[in-house]
């Protein structure tokens, strides 16, 4: 009775996205954070406690765990980051972790320290375009060059480098140029997320893509991925399944309520970073309590609850759209995905 209930269709891996700070040295226009003050940021001892809770929970469920440590900019709180990574590296249930950073604070010394963490799989940075002007329009002046330098530094030091792009109307035509550039730079993986107008990004509501535009961008990403040409393009996001439902590597169920949780800088737990509905606190609550009793999570788990055109869709077993997108656009996390083109 100790392993995770198979009936929930949980994969054999559980994922935590962990924002250890809200502080950031960039002010990207599409950012999902609403503030950068990092009020009530947790202490190192509280972070360690959460790490231990994650480990014991995963062991109880007899399931492997992966983490993404991020912020804000995680290297803004290096005094906490490195001891925490040291601790995470020692946790038995964690198979690997990734660092999500803007890359601007990385240097040779930091990478040398990171080398010691055997469970560090990838360092992910973000770029929004294959050209400086467009990228910097979104992420701020100088960010393109800094990110490119970070990628080169990572590759020079034999790290796996990942790049993420957030797709909006501003950069919808930039997928191919960016992927071409990343191949030349030796980047290992590329992934794309749809822009969700929330937090600071609410100001870019007009840059939200129409369903047909999303379809065009997704087809372009899918086509690049199928080339398998020097860079791994990750397709496990909602709606990709619509392009090829028979391939399990294409598309994925929204992880909210299924196999992931997000922990914020103050310990607040969300179903997903992009679905900012508080469902508990990682310091004061057990993950068991949150995972087993959250009404939001149970609503998400039952496909019968999903409304609109999602409800009668053939793809419901493998795609329920992005619940965060539904929430941001309609206020109802169970509404149909407003960007679905079906």
């Amino acid at each position, binding site marked *: 009775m100790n392993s995770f209930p198979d009936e929930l269709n949980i994969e054999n891996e559980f994922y935590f996205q962990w924002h250890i700070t809200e502080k950031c040295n960039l002010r990207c226009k599409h950012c999902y954070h609403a503030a950068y003050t990092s009020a009530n940021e947790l202490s190192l001892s509280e972070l360690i406690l959460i790490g231990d809770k994650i480990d014991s929970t995963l062991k109880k469920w007899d399931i492997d765990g992966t983490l993404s440590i991020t912020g804000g900019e995680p290297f803004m709180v290096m005094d906490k980051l490195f001891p925490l990574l040291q601790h995470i590296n020692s946790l038995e249930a964690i198979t690997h972790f990734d660092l999500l950073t803007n890359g601007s604070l990385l240097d040779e010394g930091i990478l040398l320290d990171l080398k010691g963490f055997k469970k560090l799989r990838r360092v992910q940075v973000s770029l929004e375009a294959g050209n400086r002007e467009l990228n910097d329009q979104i992420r701020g002046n100088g960010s393109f060059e800094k990110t490119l330098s970070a990628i080169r530094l990572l590759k020079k030091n034999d790290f796996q480098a990942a790049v993420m792009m957030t797709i909006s109307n501003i950069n919808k035509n930039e997928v191919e140029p960016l992927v071409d550039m990343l191949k030349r730079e030796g980047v290992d993986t590329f992934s794309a997320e749809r822009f969700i107008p929330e937090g600071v990004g609410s100001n870019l509501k007009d840059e939200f893509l129409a369903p047909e535009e999303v379809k065009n961008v997704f087809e372009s990403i899918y086509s690049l991925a199928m080339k398998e040409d020097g860079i791994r393009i990750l397709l496990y996001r909602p709606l990709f399944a619509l392009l090829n439902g028979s391939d399990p590597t294409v598309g994925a169920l929204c992880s909210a309520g299924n196999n992931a949780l997000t922990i914020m800088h103050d310990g607040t737990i969300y179903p997903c970073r992009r679905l900012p509905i508080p469902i508990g606190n990682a310091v004061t609550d057990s993950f*068991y309590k949150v995972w087993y009793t959250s009404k939001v999570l149970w609503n998400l788990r039952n496909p019968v609850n999903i409304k609109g055109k999602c409800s009668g869709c053939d793809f419901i077993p493998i795609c329920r759209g992005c619940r965060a997108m539904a929430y941001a656009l309609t206020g109802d996390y169970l509404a149909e995905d407003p960007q679905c083109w079906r």
Partner: protein
Amino acid sequence: MLEIEQNDTFVLEENIFLQKISELEKYWVFNIDTGEHYSFNETSYWILEQIAENLPLKNILKDFLGNFDVDENQAKVDFEEIINGFLTEGIIKRREKDEK
């Protein structure tokens, strides 16, 4: 097997949480302290729901016989076995006489 009287009343142990998705015919019991979790069939889950309502065992058994098409003698045996299983797993406990 623990001795179970028809006049006994049981309650859920603290930190036990019941959850079902009827449409999927899925029924779970969770211990939010220890992380233990159990999947049950509809009948066992129904009994737990009645226990959660603080109903005496004899009332639950009576409703059980009314709701499910089962042989009474066999039902009593099965019922007792299920209750014992819940007790053994620490899902329920006997309500003391002076407990409200």
